[in-house]
């Protein structure tokens, strides 16, 4: 970024020798610098000018009658910390100069090389402008990050509390409809019973949606990282899915599973959702065959869960992971459509990715990557209300 030369630079000059002031003006004009200057000599005027003149840059002599350049610099540091400060001196030694620059003085100009003053001013202003912009951007980024964090947290809280509080009135609707059904079945006609049936059914489905939503939002809350043997996790998932496995005679194969530092209950949920889907979306009358593999790739593990089910059209590669998005109607395959969105959330929370390959009518192969979670700051447990 270049300094715009047509912009007037406000220079505060701290100098008492009239000759030196003249020379300085001469150099500034020769350098084609478009500037205005305020010249001060006393400490009091200097402080006053820093505040009221609001200079873009300060040029200061090093030795002053009852004042000195170093003190002037520290005063400037207090009042306008971002304004560049250049010492213009005939007597300043090399060592002194180095010390001053170490403590924050922008630059120095020797009086016998006064022709360097304009390039040095230009450079100092450019650097200070860049520094200011960088600082502003950092500040902006920081505030965006804070805002994002806050709104994420609020959203999670909202989903959790809403789904929790939504259950109460719904439980009333469901319970009293059932009571009505139970107690008045014989007093009502067929139509009335059918109406009640649909109302009860709707309430129970709503209840499932809400508890799934609760589950989904909880995926962000509770989190405990420990050593987890994935083959044990799969065994446990199979135990939970026993009923549906037995019902269709599903065969599940897996071997050489790693041990990873992950959240145990989320791993169980992940494998249970994927295996459960592989069983649920089987071909009509078919026997599911499910193969789970794991292979180490650099720092992460690539897992796959392959089935011989009905398959998924590739055009739904994004949609299947969206919460409550279903590809089939309620009567064909029941469920709310939360399983894969939770799976995705779990994988991503562990720093991995999930996708699938499929051929409709032949089967689906889900892939996901996982790695041990090492970042200490990620390891926390938090609990909702």
């Amino acid at each position, binding site marked *: 970024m270049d300094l715009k030369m047509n912009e007037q630079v406000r220079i505060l000059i701290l100098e008492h020798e009239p000759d030196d002031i003249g020379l300085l003006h001469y150099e500034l004009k020769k350098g084609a610098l478009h500037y205005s200057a305020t010249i001060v000599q006393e400490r009091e005027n200097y402080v006053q000018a820093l505040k009221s003149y609001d200079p873009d840059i300060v040029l200061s002599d090093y030795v002053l009658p009852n004042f000195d350049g170093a003190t002037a610099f520290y005063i400037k540091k207090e009042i306008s910390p971002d304004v560049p400060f250049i010492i213009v001196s005939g007597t300043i030694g090399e060592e002194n100069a180095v010390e001053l620059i170490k403590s924050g003085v922008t630059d120095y100009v020797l009086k016998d090389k006064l022709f360097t003053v304009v390039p040095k001013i230009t450079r100092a202003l450019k650097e200070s402008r860049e520094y200011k912009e960088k600082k502003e951007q950092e500040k902006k980024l920081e505030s965006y990050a804070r805002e994002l964090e806050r709104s994420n947290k609020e959203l999670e809280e909202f989903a959790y509390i809403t789904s*929790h509080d939504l*259950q*109460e009135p*719904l*439980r*009333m609707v*469901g*319970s*009293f409809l*059932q*009571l009505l059904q*139970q107690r008045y079945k014989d007093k009502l006609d067929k139509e009335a019973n059918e109406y009640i049936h649909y109302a*009860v059914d709707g309430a*129970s489905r709503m*209840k499932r949606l809400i508890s799934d939503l*609760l589950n989904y939002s909880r995926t962000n809350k*509770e989190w405990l990282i420990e050593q987890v043997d994935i083959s044990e996790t799969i065994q446990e998932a199979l135990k939970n899915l026993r009923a549906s496995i037995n019902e269709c005679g599903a065969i599940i194969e897996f071997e050489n599973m790693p041990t990873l530092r992950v959240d145990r209950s989320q791993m169980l949920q992940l494998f249970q959702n994927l295996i459960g889907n592989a069983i649920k979306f089987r071909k009509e009358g078919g026997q599911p065959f499910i193969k789970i593999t794991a292979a180490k790739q650099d720092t992460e593990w690539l897992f796959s869960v392959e089935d011989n089910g009905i398959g998924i059209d590739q055009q739904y590669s994004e949609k299947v992971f969206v919460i409550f998005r279903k590809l089939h109607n309620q009567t064909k395959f029941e469920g709310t459509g939360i399983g894969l969105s939770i799976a995705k959330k779990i994988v991503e929370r562990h720093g991995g990715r999930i996708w699938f390959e499929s051929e409709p009518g032949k089967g689906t192969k889900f892939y996901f990557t996982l790695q041990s979670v090492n970042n200490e700051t990620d390891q926390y447990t938090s*609990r*909702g*209300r």
Partner: protein
Amino acid sequence: MKPINILLVEDNPGDILLARVAFEKSKYSVNIDVAMDGEEALDFLYKRGMFAEASTPDLILLDLNLPAISGSEVLADIKNDEELRVIPVIILTTSQAEWDIIRCYRLHANCFVNKPFGFESFDKVVQSIEDFWFNIVRLPVN
């Protein structure tokens, strides 16, 4: 047979009715008193004010989510009292939060039960409570 006194601490009229209906067909003679908030529950248990004549319950069904004085505060108060602490307290709540469960047991709740969805399951829970606490378990004679 002496009736079994239950104190139901519950602020939702729907739940109160559900409990009454479920206990109605009990083979035991059950008397249900209702406190609709924590303060009323404690007044009842300590026989304060209009509850001077109240009978000490044999069993307490306690909701957690109550206005003002919460269920867990009521629980803590009961279990801190020499005389009241012998009364079994069954927490009956919609909360499924791990934290609520552990907190209640730490405060010496006798058991923690989730309010089920639907009347049939509610009925089942009430029958189980009756079967266990009125039939299998022996309670102190007050």
